[in-house]
Structures are given as structure tokens and as C-alpha cells.
């Protein structure tokens, strides 16, 4: 038995949070999904009716980053920057960070934060899920 029945790699959703795009990567990311994501993000930045000023990529659920995914992440950040948006990589696991350094992939030029809230703070925004301080509005 092989995995070839699972050839349909899932697309990664891109959420808009005001002028920030939030992308959450989870588990096994296929190469084609990573490439699709790269295209989706630049397309969203360039064609969104509202301006996009920042991109936060949450990789806390990713258990390995190899040179392929590392290159895609660096290219996403470089493309976003050319389109006037800043990218922050959030939540890298310590084991992944140690491995990347040993692999020789230190991703210079990629801003990082320990989690999504800090990434948003770095971009000058409020946390992703603020406590419901004004319940009369939400419900």
C-alpha cells in the first residue's frame, strides 16, 4: 500500500484579519500545497480590495521545515515585501529551529515571533482573539 491514493493535497486557507493575512500551516504539507500557497498569498496581496500590510504564517503545528519549505517561506516573504507587506513567521518549534540551523538554512530576512499574538504585536496590531470585553456587541 502506498500513499498515492492521497494525491489531492489540501489547499491551505488564507484568512484576512483586517489588513493582515493569517495562514496556519498544519502537519504534513505537500510540496504542491506549499507552491499553491505561495501563489495564493501574492495573489491576495495584489488583488485584495482592501490593502494588505502584513502576513503572519503560523508554523506552530509544523513538525519539520526542510529546504523546500524553507525556500517557499523565504520566497513568500520576499514577494510580500515587494508588494509592500511585511511577513512574520510565528511559532517555530525549538526542534525545528535547531534543525534548520544545522541544515544551514537560517532564513535571513524573515521576521519571526514566538506566537501569533506576538507576530501581530510586531506588526502593530491587536491580538488575534481579543477577550470579549464588550459582549453586547458580539452576541
Amino acid at each position, binding site marked *: 500500500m*502506498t500513499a*498515492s491514493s492521497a494525491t489531492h493535497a489540501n489547499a491551505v486557507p488564507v484568512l484576512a484579519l483586517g489588513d493582515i493575512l493569517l495562514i496556519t500551516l498544519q502537519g504534513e504539507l505537500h*510540496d*504542491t500545497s506549499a507552491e499553491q500557497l505561495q501563489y495564493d498569498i501574492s495573489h491576495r496581496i495584489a488583488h485584495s480590495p482592501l490593502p494588505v500590510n502584513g502576513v503572519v504564517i503560523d508554523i506552530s503545528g509544523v513538525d519539520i521545515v526542510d*529546504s523546500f519549505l524553507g525556500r517557499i517561506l523565504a520566497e513568500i516573504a520576499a514577494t510580500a515585501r515587494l508588494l509592500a507587506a511585511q511577513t512574520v513567521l510565528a511559532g517555530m518549534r525549538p*526542534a525545528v529551529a*535547531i534543525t534548520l540551523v544545522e*541544515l*544551514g538554512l537560517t532564513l535571513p530576512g524573515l521576521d519571526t515571533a514566538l506566537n501569533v499574538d506576538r507576530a501581530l504585536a510586531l506588526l502593530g496590531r491587536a491580538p488575534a482573539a481579543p477577550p470579549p470585553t464588550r459582549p453586547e456587541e458580539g452576541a
Partner: protein
Amino acid sequence: MHAPLAPTTHLPIGSDADLAWVRQQVRKTATDLGFGLIQQTKLVTATSELARNTLVHGGGGHVEVTPLRAGHVCGLRLSFVDAGPGIRDLDLAMTDGYTSGGGLGLGLSGAKRLVQELIVDSCPGRGTTVTVTDWASGLPAPRTGTR
């Protein structure tokens, strides 16, 4: 010699989805053998690099996964096998930053740093086999520090 602890498993490397499957299987086997989290992460990352080379440069192939035991220490041997064009200049291929394609050229040289032993056996025109061996505790074969 190191006795095999369990029979060798063959996994195909012919697609994107196979790469994901191979990573998962190596992760699971390394966990079962008692590899720590950081060592697992390094081994699975090296696996991803080598399996992708088998797919992209070697035109596809397979990986042989063999759990090992030496005394009380468990290890894992992975052989990535293809019948592709082979590597003409191995020293060049092992150099950080060298790529014949559009990569970063970190796969092979980086993978060597992530595991205790990495051996490339390649014959131009007949294919490439890359074999890595890693022991759960870092023993009995510590990294020899070839950079």
C-alpha cells in the same frame, strides 16, 4: 555488525504524496525506537531532503527502512535508492550551495550534518543510493565531524 532489529520495509518514492508518507513512516519508526524529539526532527528533515532528491534528481525510486540494534542501543538505517542519472562529481554535489537545478543546494550537505552517518554510492548513468544510519542515543557511532 549491527543486527537488524526488524525486517526492512520498502516504501516507494514516486510522488509528492509519497514524500509525505515516507516522512511519516520514518517519524513513527524513530519514535518507536526511542529517538528523542530533536534527533527525530533532524532525521525526518534529512529524510525529506534525500527522498526529494530521489524523486527530483533520480526520477523516483524507493527507500529501505531498517531498524537496527547494537547491544542496548537502537538505530535506524535508511537507504534512498534510485536508478537515475547518478552523481558525476560527488564532492561538488556535497558542497553547501551547489545545485544543478533551482534548489538551494543544501539538501545533501545539510542532511549529512543532521545524521551520524551518510554515505553516497553513485554510479553515473546507473543510479544513486544514499544510506544514512542514526543511533537513538547518539551512540555507538558519534558524528565524525566531517564538514
